[in-house]
């Protein structure tokens, strides 16, 4: 390509309702010896500026691969096989900002354009903070390195930051994320920190370049419930303070209900349903969403009775069902229709969409 960046359209004025990120019909495939796995098979959703979008799904639903595709860090033999990932990035100097929309799916993963977006404008909080930090460098060094690399995020029109200034910023970030004794902790190694502190340091690192979009991939799965509560409260506060958008990836419906304002439900690489959080939990449309919510034991339902279950188990990725991926386990399956055609994601309410033939008859081209 050689261009480095392909501006698709340029918007000078930032409309509030204009999405920050727009994923359109994203397809990610993994070419394995045994065949091609379609990990993400036509996913579409929008993220508005400052919005918290929850992506929920079970293992193998493609939620993590979608996130990796947005950052262009899909591991080989995986590749983005189609679709668009439109990201609205800010350009220019403070006061005279312009915005342009780039298609991340078309940027070379190792090119300078992608590298200036990754980490700086779109940051990631990974699932396992133990594995994410290098054990042979202090956490401070690693964050300072990121700040120095993306110094333009802090000084859009000035000279590069000095090491001392970067260290100062790191200390302030540690204070922001609630790490006690921040100036000493900058010099700590990741293995000297507890799970909760390590996750806080990871959040500080993700925030270190003032991203407009934060992707949190199961950020609380590896930690205990009282620590999880602290981290979730912290993320909520920071989101309000910095006004960034967050994509929150998790399999925990409780976390989604408490964190997200908009929810995307995925199953086997496809979006089954999406909508505002209240509609998803109180008026779910897709049979998968409904069954998933019913099958969970709650803190105030009736105990020691059989729960409604979803029959069967998740199909193996090489054994994708034809038609709607959920039809073999679906209680409302329509004979002849669900097995032969793939329902497309269509509006089923004011702001809610579902891919299900119970509500419409629009199929995706095979």
């Amino acid at each position, binding site marked *: 390509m050689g261009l480095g960046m392909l501006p698709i359209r340029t918007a000078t004025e930032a409309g509030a309702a204009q999405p920050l990120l727009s994923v359109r019909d994203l397809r990610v495939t993994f070419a394995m010896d045994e065949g091609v796995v379609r990990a993400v098979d036509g996913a579409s959703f929008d993220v508005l500026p400052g919005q918290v979008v929850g992506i929920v799904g079970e293992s193998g639903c493609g939620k993590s691969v979608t996130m990796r595709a947005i950052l262009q860090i899909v591991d080989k033999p995986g590749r983005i096989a189609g679709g668009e990932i439109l990201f609205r990035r800010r350009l220019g100097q403070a006061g005279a900002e312009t915005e342009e929309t780039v298609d991340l799916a078309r940027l070379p993963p190792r090119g300078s354009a992608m590298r200036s977006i990754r980490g700086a404008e779109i940051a990631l909080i990974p699932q396992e903070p133990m594995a994410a930090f290098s054990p042979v460098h202090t956490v401070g060094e690693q964050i300072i390195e990121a700040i120095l690399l993306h110094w333009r995020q802090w000084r859009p029109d000035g000279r590069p930051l000095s090491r001392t200034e970067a260290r100062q910023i790191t200390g302030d970030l540690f204070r922001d994320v609630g790490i006690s004794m921040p100036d000493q902790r900058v010099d700590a190694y990741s293995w000297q920190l507890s799970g909760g502190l390590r996750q806080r340091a990871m959040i500080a690192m993700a925030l270190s370049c003032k991203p407009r979009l934060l992707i949190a991939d199961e950020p609380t799965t590896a930690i205990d*419930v*009282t620590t*999880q509560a*602290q981290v979730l409260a912290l993320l909520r506060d920071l989101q309000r303070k910095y006004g960034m958008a967050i994509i929150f990836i998790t399999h925990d419906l*409780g976390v989604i209900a*408490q964190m997200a304002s908009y929810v995307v439900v995925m199953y086997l690489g496809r979006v089954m349903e999406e909508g505002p959080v*209240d509609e998803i939990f109180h008026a779910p449309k897709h049979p998968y969403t409904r069954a998933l*919510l019913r099958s969970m034991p*709650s*803190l105030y339902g009736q105990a020691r009775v059989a729960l409604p279950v979803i029959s069967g188990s998740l199909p193996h990725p090489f054994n994708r069902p034809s038609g709607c991926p959920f039809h073999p386990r679906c209680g409302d399956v329509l004979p002849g229709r669900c097995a032969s055609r793939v329902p497309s994601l269509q509006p089923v309410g004011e702001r809610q969409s579902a891919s299900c033939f119970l509500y419409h008859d629009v199929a995706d081209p095979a």
Partner: protein
Amino acid sequence: MTAPSPGGAATPLLEVRNLRKFFPIVKGTFRKVVGNVRAVDDVSFSIQEGETLGLVGESGCGKTTTSRCIIRAMAPTSGQVLFHTRAGKVVDLVPMSRKQLRPLRPEIQMIFQDPFGSLNPRMTLLDNVGEPLLVNGLRNRRERTDRVAELLRLVGLRPEFMHRFPHAFSGGQRQRIGIARALSTNPRLVVADEPISALDVSVQAQVLNLLLELQTRLHLTYLFVAHDLSVVRHISDRVAVMYVGQLVELAPTSAIFKRPKHPYTAALMRAVPVPDPRVPSGNGALKGEVPSPAAPPSGCYFHPRCQFAEERCRREPPPLREIAPGHLARCHLADQLTLETPASGAGGR
């Protein structure tokens, strides 16, 4: 099924008394003991026949160590584990040798967390599930095959699968295989350590239902160890909460979820994000972190994080005492506090 009233007519199957498990911290060439990790510190409870006792707590609280001491995968430091055998005798498992434990093993079985690591990948289902039978003297292959077929049917798998290997099965199916293996010896007590936490959400309910159904059919007694409170609430008759190696509260399920008496229990319940956007929850009500069991705080172990802590809590360790019939709590202020949880206002639903 209702909870048998503790201390009532129901017969206990297992009584754990003052169980302790310390791991020594050694230092230097001569491996001098410089301290102890008090992983389980004076834990006492009993489980009635046919009952499910849920054991909850955060990682490092000692819940898994407690369950391992009960099945004697570990030797406790001190205490008693009294088991009422099928023959009607009461035996203490703690001082027993491996040889002495042998005849009791069939009566106490375990279901493991990881359905991928707990089955031998080189053995077929027949051998995986049939191994305990072989070990316990069922040498006739024909009879063993029949028994395995029966067990597979019991857990909802087709008996034709018995010549396949574990890799051919999904996580939920493997957990069923693990359950079939645990049931092969007709156990009376089943210790389940996080049996569904490694499974996908859509499969968890299936396994939970299976455990409930098997309990009714086979009159099993469960010690259910888990960190997920909504799962524990769903399956347990009574719930025990552990914190830094100690039991801090033990009560019938509905009582502990509606009116917990220990501030830690209440905080734990408030910390769970409820899957309903209209019920605000999951807020960081607790400050700080779990203390190390090698150097627990003075007085009540929970006082540095407790919003109600008084001078007394810093000095005196509170005893585990009965606050209401069958409701034990380890807190000086348990009678005075009214603690709210997301389930408090839910009425009798």
